[in-house]
């Protein structure tokens, strides 16, 4: 068939209709792009509860910067990573965002984040030496820094002072040996219906907190392979599994325990490995007469106080931002020790700067004391984009080991096998010489 001239296919009235329709649609589709804001708007994404607290701090920033409005968008924690990645994939990112520091490698790999080295070097406010080094380090990838720590958390021991004392333990354990004997003593005290420690099976963090204390790294050969068959990880896993096998810990998930806080109050368990957010929860949820019965302690290491997981959130600027300078000024504002202190009062989040901790109120907070101690010994988890997936595997494999389906050696081997599969693409890219 001979091709016709396209113009003759439809009558002109059809064309007129079609073109009007298409123009209308195009106008509709692009309508939202034509807005011209009169004032400068910085889009700021926060995750979870921090948004409510930060909104109260912002009027002061806006007073200092006339004509600037900070538009805060609160993303629920459970949807945060997908929202961030979808934003990056769709070129729809905010100017500045709160970011869980383990997510940093993924976003750096996508070239979504602005390197901050030059701005930090020139800043009078953000001073590297004032930050706890472990938490600062989580923001450094390939010798470039992409985020400023906003708040820090680490996992340590919450314990029932009175129950420990009844079991004859008057100071919290310093090393695994002491810890182990205290677990035995508590179990003997509370009997078969109650437990020494709660390690929720739906969390990978307790095991990881033990594993990070070991000398061997979790990944090896430039983060190309899993290193879970190392003696160190096996030692951590054995101790973890031992706690379940001796029924020091219940084989339960968080959801199977109706209310973690009440059960702690009832003495269902005496130790709980958790983070700073639970200081506030226990203060709120346990009755006043019980407030003297609990305390926090640094996590015992294999031979004395050990390293802690470097958790927390950083503030980052996106490459696509058109207000990078303003966004940086917002970061500096939020990093001011005085502002950090107000933020801490509102949220209970722990500040990442030593100078904020010199505040008498924070310094005398007995529950925060153990955290302050452990913050000097933080260690970051491996900085590969795949880390979230690997951490999930740690949880799944550990759960099977706890149930007795796998021996320690089998579990370590399986974990290495899964991890190597997950890292296959990374190896391929590294071996091609391309920057991941």
């Amino acid at each position: 068939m001979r091709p016709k001239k396209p113009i003759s296919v439809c009558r002109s009235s059809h064309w007129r209709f079609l073109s009007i329709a298409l123009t209308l649609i195009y106008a509709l589709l692009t309508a939202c792009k034509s807005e011209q804001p009169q004032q400068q708007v910085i889009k700021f994404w926060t995750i979870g509860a921090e948004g409510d607290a930060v909104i109260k701090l912002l009027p002061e920033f806006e007073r200092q910067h006339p004509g600037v409005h900070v538009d805060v968008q609160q993303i629920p924690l459970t949807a945060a990573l997908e929202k961030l990645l979808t934003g990056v994939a769709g070129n729809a990112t905010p100017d500045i965002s709160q970011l869980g520091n383990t997510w940093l490698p993924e976003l750096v790999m996508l070239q979504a984040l602005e390197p901050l080295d030059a701005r930090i070097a020139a800043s009078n406010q953000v001073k590297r030496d004032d930050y706890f080094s472990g938490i600062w380090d989580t923001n450094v990838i390939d010798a470039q820094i992409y985020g400023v720590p906003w708040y820090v958390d680490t996992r340590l021991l919450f314990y029932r002072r009175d129950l420990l004392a009844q079991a004859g333990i008057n100071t919290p354990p310093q090393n695994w040996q002491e810890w182990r004997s205290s677990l035995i003593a508590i179990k003997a005290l509370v009997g078969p219906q109650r437990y020494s420690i709660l390690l929720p099976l739906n969390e990978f963090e307790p095991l990881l907190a033990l594993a990070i204390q070991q000398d061997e790294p979790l990944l090896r050969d430039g983060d190309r392979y899993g290193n879970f068959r190392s003696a160190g990880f096996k030692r951590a896993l054995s101790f973890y599994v031992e706690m379940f096998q001796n029924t020091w810990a219940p084989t339960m998930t968080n959801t199977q325990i109706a209310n973690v806080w009440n059960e702690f109050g009832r003495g269902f368990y005496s130790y709980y490995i958790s983070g700073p957010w639970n200081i506030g929860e226990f203060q709120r949820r346990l009755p006043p007469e019980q407030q003297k019965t609990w305390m926090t302690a640094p996590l015992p290491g294999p031979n004395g106080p050990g390293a802690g997981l470097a958790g927390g959130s950083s503030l980052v600027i996106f490459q696509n931002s058109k207000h990078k300078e303003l966004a940086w000024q917002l970061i500096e504002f939020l990093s001011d020790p005085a502002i950090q202190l107000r933020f801490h009062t509102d949220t209970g989040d722990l500040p990442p700067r030593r100078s904020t901790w010199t505040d008498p109120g924070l310094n005398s907070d007995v529950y925060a004391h153990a955290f302050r101690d452990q913050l000097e010994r933080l260690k970051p988890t491996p900085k590969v984009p795949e880390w979230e997936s690997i951490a999930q595997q740690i949880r799944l494999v550990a759960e099977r080991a706890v149930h007795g389906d796998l021996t320690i050696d089998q579990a370590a081997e399986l974990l290495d096998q899964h991890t190597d599969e997950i890292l296959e693409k990374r190896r391929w890219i590294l071996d091609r010489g391309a920057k991941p």
Partner: protein
Amino acid sequence: MKVERAAWCFVAPALLVIGLFFFVPVIAAFGASLTDFDLYALADIRNLRFVGFANYQRLLQLPEFWDALGHTLYFVAAGVPLSIFASLTAALLLNSKLARCKPFFRTALFAPVVTTVVAMAVIWNYLFHTRYGWVNYALSSIGVHPIDWLGDPHWAMPTIILFAVWKNFGYNMIIFIAGLQSIPEDLYEAARIDGASYWQQFRFITWPSLAPTLLLVSMLTMAGYFQLFAEPYVMTQGGPLQSTVSVLYFMYDEGFKWWRVGSASAVAFLLFVLMFIVATLQLWLGRRGGNT
């Protein structure tokens, strides 16, 4: 000739939209399912590799995928019959000559269908609240201990199924009513003269006459129920213990959380194949049932 030209102009806009925003992506999805498209490829397309059917192979060995499939099949296998049973019962009641205020009841029973899943899920979450929910309160009056409906891995899926049935049964009810109304009244009269009971009338007149409608309704409902997503996303976020992660939820996580586009596309196609097989099976069973 003139008509033909005009015809093409009439269908062109719709075909263009459907072609561009449906057929092209579907074909692209199949292409993507044969690659390892992931975050690395998103950052730099040169990091894309053709992997053949490796994604499918990996999925078929992945316990999480089988779990998601299991949950979806549970939802379909329990939800579809329940939903159809509820629809048919409601239709029979509404179609009964003894029913009063039919327009009111019809509207009342249909209302949940037009509501928004997300909004209703918010309400449902609260009705089924362990401590303050009406459901546990009502059950406590007959001596049942409080059940942690959405927090207990054994109860979460049944609760979602109940929700889906409540939300959807009105739709099929309307179709069944139309089916019932098309059955000639003299069939029933003849049966009554022969002394047939209500049950016999239902068994030998209503049920066979409804058979084609029933086949169609079950196929449509099945197709809809396979696409479970919004309910667990809002009510349980896939939990507790991943017990409400459906295939689509799994695809959403693979695709939009982990950005394993290749793997997520393979999930979508596996779901499609499964739905296709089940629908074909239903048609075959329906035809066989019709012939005997």
